[in-house]
């Protein structure tokens, strides 16, 4: 699984960094920076929840 951000959709709410701090940090402007590489499998359920919570539907989980 791989987490991606749609850069046009993302409004920089920063919710994803709260919900998934292991993989998402925010840059100085409040936009998410994702950790490199595939998503650790133990975080899959949390990642799914974070993607569903993104108000802009910009955070997405894909099969890598």
């Amino acid at each position, binding site marked *: 699984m791989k987490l991606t951000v*749609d*850069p*046009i959709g*993302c409004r*920089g709410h920063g919710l994803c960094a709260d919900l998934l701090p292991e993989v998402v940090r925010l*840059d*100085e*402007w*409040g*936009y998410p*920076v994702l950790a490199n590489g595939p998503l650790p499998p133990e975080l899959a359920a949390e990642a799914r929840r974070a993607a569903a919570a993104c108000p802009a539907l910009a955070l997405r989980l894909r099969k890598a």
Partner: protein
Amino acid sequence: MSILPPHRLDLAGHRRRNGVVPWVAYHGDDGRDRLVEAVEAAGLRGRGGGGFPTAVKLRAARSRRSIVVANGCEGDPLSRKDAALLTLAPHLVLDGLQLAAHAVGATETVLCVHAGSPVLPSVTAALAERDDHVPVRIAEVPRRYVASEESALVHYLTSGDARPLGKEPRPAERGVRGRPTLVDNVETLAQLASVVLLGPHHYRAARTDLVTVTGAVRQPGVVELPAGPSLTAVLAAAGGETEPVQAVLVGGYGGTWTTDLRLGLSGIPAVYALPASACGLEYTAKVLAFLAAESARQCGPCMFGLPSIAADFAELVRGGPSVHRLAHRLPLLTGRGACAHPDGAARLAASALRTFGADVTTHQAGGRCRVLEGVA
């Protein structure tokens, strides 16, 4: 064969010089296959900057209802090669456009140029002389740097909004009005016509590159050289240096500074030769300010990041301590926009810090460099 003639060729002149496309040889489905195979054998790659193999793109966009878009927008202020082609050799581009349309089975083609572009009269006159199988429409795209990006053109032709759409879906799958779309730079199309007019093997031996040369050269403008020229050869073709050149910006505003003139170029649309008497950091700061203003303001890292690094550079030129901020910010911009605009700006800024490292130190030390001191 050179693709750029010394003066404009009308249809008769073009045919005398370059010949007529042998359409019968490419008739029907087998013919389409042969055409794509010829492009593959010629080793043709896109000339819009991406360098992607043209045959692969042709195969991907093949369908009975596709659209071919010729990109003649040339957003980079340092590049003039597409304008030169459309002004001097419009029929070579249009032959290429018809061949591409045939290869992918397109029913419609669009030639995109910037609104009010000086190439319009040449292109309009050329179209009036032809009796093409697939209709060609001219679209005047808003004059903006990112409007010439592939997905921005597709977006504009579909909805009238010239902002980039992002990487998915690829235009070959779902492009203009949802149809499979092939977007090719106009030089790529002219090269495609040359492949057919010369034959792939002759083309391979004779192929050339167009490069726009500006800065400290005697005859700034578009030069044509055997493919893959060195920077030395490119500067010589533009009449040689007017004064010592300290570095060359390779690839236009989103390009890279280098001091190695032996460097071989391939698919590079534009170079700028910085004279020894100018400040590379100052020039870069101006370009970054331009690129920041040209962001389509859709993606956070581009909308906020580009003005930040442009301000950092302006501060660096004035002697401020912004280099540390830049070291932290530049790696953050790459790959985080929906198009490659922020990547180009970050690449330019990083290469300026590398290439003009000594000037960075003097600026920081006193806010003045050798240029301001008059030492250069």
